């Protein structure tokens, strides 16, 4: 056989074996990976629901809004909704705070049907380790000052950090990061007040 043909066929055979191995691994792991992702999503969502009583799965009823959507950030925003006896219980808003110290901060804001915050969690951020990362629930109780608050408590003009004359604590050595997060929470509450009717009634899609 000609040499170029042997060489080509060898390469093709090895490529076929490699593709088979990757396809087989994918086939074996695809189910588990999808399960892991869903479980991880729910484990991230649940803490922001605080003490809300609900009987649906948070990841099961979500709507994704493309910008411009009126919520903080210019990435797509996702709203997860939970219900109790088919009545709206709370909505979780995954939004972005744009004016942090380094890149967008993904914030999850939980708001119950009455408009009070159920919990706040930081999903992703690039803030400075040791300073801005105090917003993470695992590194401090900074996010614990929000549950129970709403747009009237404190009034909207006081929804900012103390350095700006507001009611909320900043972090030692970091003001920009908390300022951005508090601003995003306030804007989410404003959006919720304005769109109360449609937040729960828009048809959702399960993830």
């Amino acid at each position: 056989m000609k040499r170029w043909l042997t060489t080509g066929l060898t390469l093709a055979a090895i490529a076929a074996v490699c593709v088979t191995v990757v396809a087989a691994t994918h086939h074996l792991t695809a189910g588990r990976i999808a399960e892991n992702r869903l479980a991880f999503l729910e484990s991230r969502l649940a803490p922001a629901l605080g003490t809300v009583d609900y009987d649906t799965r948070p990841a099961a009823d979500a709507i994704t809004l493309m910008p411009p959507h009126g919520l903080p950030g210019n990435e797509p925003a996702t709203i997860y909704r939970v219900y109790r006896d088919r009545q709206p219980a709370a909505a979780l808003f995954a939004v972005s705070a744009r004016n942090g110290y380094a890149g967008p901060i993904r914030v999850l804001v939980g708001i119950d049907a009455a408009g009070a915050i159920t919990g706040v969690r930081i999903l992703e951020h690039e803030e400075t380790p040791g300073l801005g990362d105090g917003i993470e629930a695992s590194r401090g109780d900074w996010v614990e000052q929000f549950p129970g608050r709403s747009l009237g408590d404190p009034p909207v003009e006081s929804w900012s950090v103390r350095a700006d004359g507001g009611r909320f604590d900043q972090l030692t050595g970091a003001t920009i990061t908390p300022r951005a997060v508090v601003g995003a929470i306030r804007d989410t509450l404003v959006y919720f007040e304005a769109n109360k009717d449609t937040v729960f009634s828009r048809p959702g899609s399960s993830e």
Partner: protein
Amino acid sequence: MTTDSPTLTATFRRGLWQDNPGLVQLLGLCPLLAVTTSLANGLGLGLATLAVLTASNLLVSLSRRFLSREIRVPVYVLIIASLVTSVELLIEAYLPALDRSLGIFIPLIVTNCAIVARAEVFASRNPVLPSIFDGIGMGTGFACLLAAIGAFRELIGAGSVLTGIGMLGGQEAQGGFAIIDGGWLLAVLPPGAFFSLALAVAAKNAVDNRQRRPVTGGMTRLRSAAAGSAQRGRESQ
């Protein structure tokens, strides 16, 4: 090449110490510097690299007789890319917390030049058994270095040990002990990675020099020993 056990042990030890990919050959520095913020992260990526390196050495050595010069490098690329993709899928399926913690650096094992270097320099010229030992030796050397630098930076930078070690067992990132509250932040920031690697290379050279010259020498001696060590480092590549 003979395949008796002293040679195999020597092959293994060369990867672990004399020709350590990170300390001597200075290969694979991108993951080494990027993920070593904790022992769990460093060890996780080190073990994944060890698995890929050993399997790629095995496969390259097995196929070395069928490969003509023209397709050798494309075949290495195919083999390494398939192995890394499979390892990545397995980690995401069975160690999800580790996958989230290491993120892009698992697929980026494919670009670790230590792997293609061992395929080209060793596995394509040696029988299967020595190639496997070379892969295990080099992989273990790299994993130990990643784990050591990770532990060092974690201790200095965060004041804790074994944080998130649970993710190597398929659990969430849990476990670990805080020794002091907080730490010297610089150690976990990027400059700390360079300082830690420099200290590790210096420590290795110091140990080598001491072994070679039991009597402590003057500055001149130390300098010539360091130069000799650097010289050998270059030759070994």
